[in-house]
């Protein structure tokens, strides 16, 4: 596969993640969409790393950092979801309207 095809797969994955993040009302589903988008970014970095960059460690380290950040992000996101669930007994993004005046 060429660089372009990898990038296209990445873009497609990102679009799928976007659909997931935009169309769902369940916060966990939104989180899953966001994860897909981050992974699309990782795929792009790895592809560039393989085909474009002369120092082969750079892209891999970026991906490792993305994975680490994703872990941190998920931890925070999930704890927020749990907290929201305790407060509202629901995790529907459209029902969290307490602050909307």
């Amino acid at each position: 596969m060429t660089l372009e095809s990898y990038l296209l797969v990445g873009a497609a994955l990102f679009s799928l993640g976007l659909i997931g993040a935009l169309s769902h009302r369940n916060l966990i589903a939104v989180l899953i969409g966001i994860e897909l988008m981050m992974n699309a970014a990782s795929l792009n970095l790895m592809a560039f790393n393989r085909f474009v960059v002369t120092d082969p460690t750079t892209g891999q380290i970026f991906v490792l950092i993305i994975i680490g950040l994703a872990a941190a992000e998920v931890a925070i996101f999930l704890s927020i979801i749990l907290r929201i669930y305790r407060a509202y007994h629901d995790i529907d993004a459209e029902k969290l309207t307490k602050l909307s005046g």
Partner: protein
Amino acid sequence: MLEQAVIYTFVAFVLIGGGLAAFSRQILYAIIGLGISLLGLAGLFLNLGSPFVAAMQVLIYIGGITVAIVFAMMLSIAMSIRPPDPDARKLGFAIACAVIFFGAVAHLIRGAQFQQIASPASEKAWSVGALGHALLTHYNVVFETLSLVLLLAIIGAILIARKALPKENS
């Protein structure tokens, strides 16, 4: 030939899993889709020449993050409620966004001229040792920052998710 087939299988994994994650109403299917997609992605990483990153992807994303999402799902109501009825307008908007985005990016990719290197770097540079060395020398500030971020995330997650103290309830 066979190798190409394997790669396309992985790509199919990525896209089918992603589709499952994006379109399924059942949250559990979405999680399974995420898992499949991540597995395919790990395969692609393997193919792009980094077994280590692929293993890390599996270890942290599938073994850690997916399981954590499953756990959050079990602890929240998502498990027992009936999935909400699909909102056609919302889905339409999302698909429109995605299509526009994908179209734009695809167009850009087709038009772009990448300065590709002739051959992939030597086998040694892909090794775990080289990665570790780079992490601890050239990228050590990033590495340290990331570890701090993770520590803070753990503390923050515990603080946010723990049971509310009695006085907070009042």
